[in-house]
């Protein structure tokens, strides 16, 4: 009997929970009367999982999609690309978001549990996010940096802001005599993989490491996630880092040398790099995996993260197929891309890419 007394806080907690059990003010109504002005007949639950870089865009897409289809609930779990691919592989999610596409070995190994036995998978680069090189220097908003200088700074070879290599491309800018603190991601991330891929392609003589999701050597400052890097750069002195361009805020950003000119990131320039890059060869129709070209000839911003939306071409469960098809069609539409640009700062895909993506989505069954 005395035990009941110890459970009292728990009991009260449960009572409080029940008291709160009235539905959330923004939920329920639309679902119950279903007269939200839509003729949608779609209903059901869809679960996606994967890239956390894509999360803000996914939440925006889901919000709009659910408004248009009130009987649909979509949950996107930003558990990370690796976890997202594994979850999709074991059939626990209907679609995946990933910072890299499944590679040839993984596709050959197969075993996608949600897909029909002979189905191929569809991989669409529907989220293009420019990565900005951000820094924190009093009174300086922009610097021109060439790939070798960026690589030198992040490799720890250029250690002071008044280094001649930085001064050479920034005439007229008064560079302080201040130690450089390069900040990189401490977690395994697609942003790091794309950034190191850029350094390895554009400045191979300085950056001798391979592209990797984990920072390849000990040195520099490490911070968790995009938010951590932005916080570290903002709160530190003489710091430089790389992060999703949408999060650059008031920090200074670098204009990156492409060919002979220096280019600030912009949605158009970021979308352009995807158009000039070739698709990976030998993949079935509907697999639009890219081989990103970081040293383009044209005015295209080379440091971008491309996240793939991955689905089955043929699902075991036709209801899931229908939901995924509708949802992906919305993502690929001009409207969907604009919603993501507004909420997540991504670069809308070009019309040529959209045509190919829509063709692939239409083949989902």
């Amino acid at each position, binding site marked *: 009997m005395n035990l009941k007394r110890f459970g009292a806080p728990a009991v*009260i907690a449960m009572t409080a929970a029940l008291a709160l059990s009235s539905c959330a003010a923004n*939920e329920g109504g639309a679902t119950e009367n279903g007269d939200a002005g839509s003729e949608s007949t779609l209903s059901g639950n869809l679960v996606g999982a994967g890239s956390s870089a894509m999360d803000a865009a996914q939440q925006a897409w889901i919000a709009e999609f659910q408004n248009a289809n009130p009987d649909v609930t979509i949950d996107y779990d930003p558990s990370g690309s690796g976890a997202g691919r594994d979850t999709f592989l074991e059939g626990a*999610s209907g679609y995946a978001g990933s910072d890299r596409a499944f590679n040839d070995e993984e596709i050959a190994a197969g075993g996608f*549990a949600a897909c029909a036995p002979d189905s191929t998978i569809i991989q669409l680069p529907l989220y293009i996010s420019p990565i900005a090189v951000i820094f924190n220097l009093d009174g300086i908003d922009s610097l021109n940096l060439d790939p070798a200088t960026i690589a030198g700074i992040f490799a720890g070879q250029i250690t002071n802001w008044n280094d001649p290599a930085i001064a050479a491309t920034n005439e007229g800018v008064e560079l302080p005599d201040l130690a450089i603190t390069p900040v990189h991601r401490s977690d395994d991330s697609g942003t790091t993989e794309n950034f190191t891929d850029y350094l390895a392609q554009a400045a191979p003589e300085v950056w001798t490491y391979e592209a990797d999701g984990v920072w390849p050597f000990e040195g520099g400052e490490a911070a968790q996630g995009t*938010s951590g890097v932005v916080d570290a750069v903002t709160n530190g002195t003489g710091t430089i880092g790389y992060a999703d361009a949408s999060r650059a805020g008031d920090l200074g950003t670098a204009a990156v040398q492409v060919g002979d000119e220096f280019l600030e990131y912009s949605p158009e320039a970021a979308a352009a790099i995807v158009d000039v890059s070739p698709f990976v060869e030998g993949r079935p129709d509907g697999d639009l995996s890219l081989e990103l070209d970081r040293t383009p000839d044209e005015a295209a911003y080379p440091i971008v993260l491309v996240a793939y939306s991955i689905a089955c071409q043929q699902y075991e469960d036709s209801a899931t197929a229908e939901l995924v098809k509708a949802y992906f069609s919305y993502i690929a539409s001009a409207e969907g891309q604009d919603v993501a640009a507004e*909420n997540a700062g991504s670069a809308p895909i070009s019309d040529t890419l959209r045509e190919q993506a829509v063709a692939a989505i239409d083949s989902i069954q």
Partner: protein
Amino acid sequence: MTTTLTPPEPRVATPVSNSLTAGKLPNGAPWMILAASLLVSAGLFGVIALSGAEFNWVGTLVVAALIYVVVITVLSRIVEGSRRSTDRFVTSLVTGAFLLAMIPLVSLTITVVTFGLARFDPEFFTYSMRSVTGEGGGALHAIVGTLLMTGTAALISIPIGLMTSIYLVEYGRGRLARGITFLVDVMTGIPSIVAGLFAYALFAIFWGPGTRTGIAGAVALAVLMIPVVVRSSEEMLRLVPNELREAAYALGVPKWLTIVKVVLPTSIAGITTGIMLSIARVIGETAPLLIAAGFTNSMNYDMTEGRMQSLPVFVYTQYANQGTPASAYLDRAWAAALTLILIVMALNLIARLVARFFAPKFGR
């Protein structure tokens, strides 16, 4: 006291070897010395500040504290002798430790409250995050999820934990007791993220891969909670004097009634503190819930079906995956953190009242 019969000489303020008759600093002395140290220190830094540097508040307080400790120790040693001097020295150290610890704690509280109040509005408590982007939205789904999962975890682990500690203290002899003590030790070493992985894997066996439910989250929390309940209650039960138990046995009270009526009430304040600590320990867990209970933007009251949001996960996801405008996400994160602390505060208050109601009346 062993004085001779010679007529008493007039008292003089010279140190005497007998500590009981030693002089004593006047009552207000510590405060006066403290004020004087502050003045001296402020003067010192004021002079430095005159030469152009900024006035250093931190330095002033640190130096003042040092001056105070040295002065009061030395002065007390001269006037009151070495034993009182040590006592005064330790008193200032203990108080100092307390004040030192208050700095981060107060700073943290102020940070959470100031940032948290920005979104501490009715909408926050009546909305979920379903179909919300950018500004607005709320954490009702997370509050409900946290209460349900933590409540269930408490219902699992408090009986098990408390009975185990009773077993260890009152019944446990021999190999099983030693084994359980050992295992509880091992259990405190389970990293929270591993508990989450375990619960996830366990429920995947029954309900298929990728199942994320509130009950899985509750089990993960219970795994983390049980050892804390056991260890703290065990410690408190051991402190109950054996005389009390023996007195009860001597009156012919059965053992189980002795435990329920004598041992538990005597230690209930400590046990309640331990249980509150264990709840506090798990209610803020992020990593295991992220894995076991998942993440959702919609309401869910069903522990056995579907993902369930919780406040710490809400804070983490709002911080880690900010969209635009970023400030809307950060404000929601801080408001959720403030809510979580307030919930624990309320639980704590209830627990203290319960403890006070059932505890025997002591001298203190």
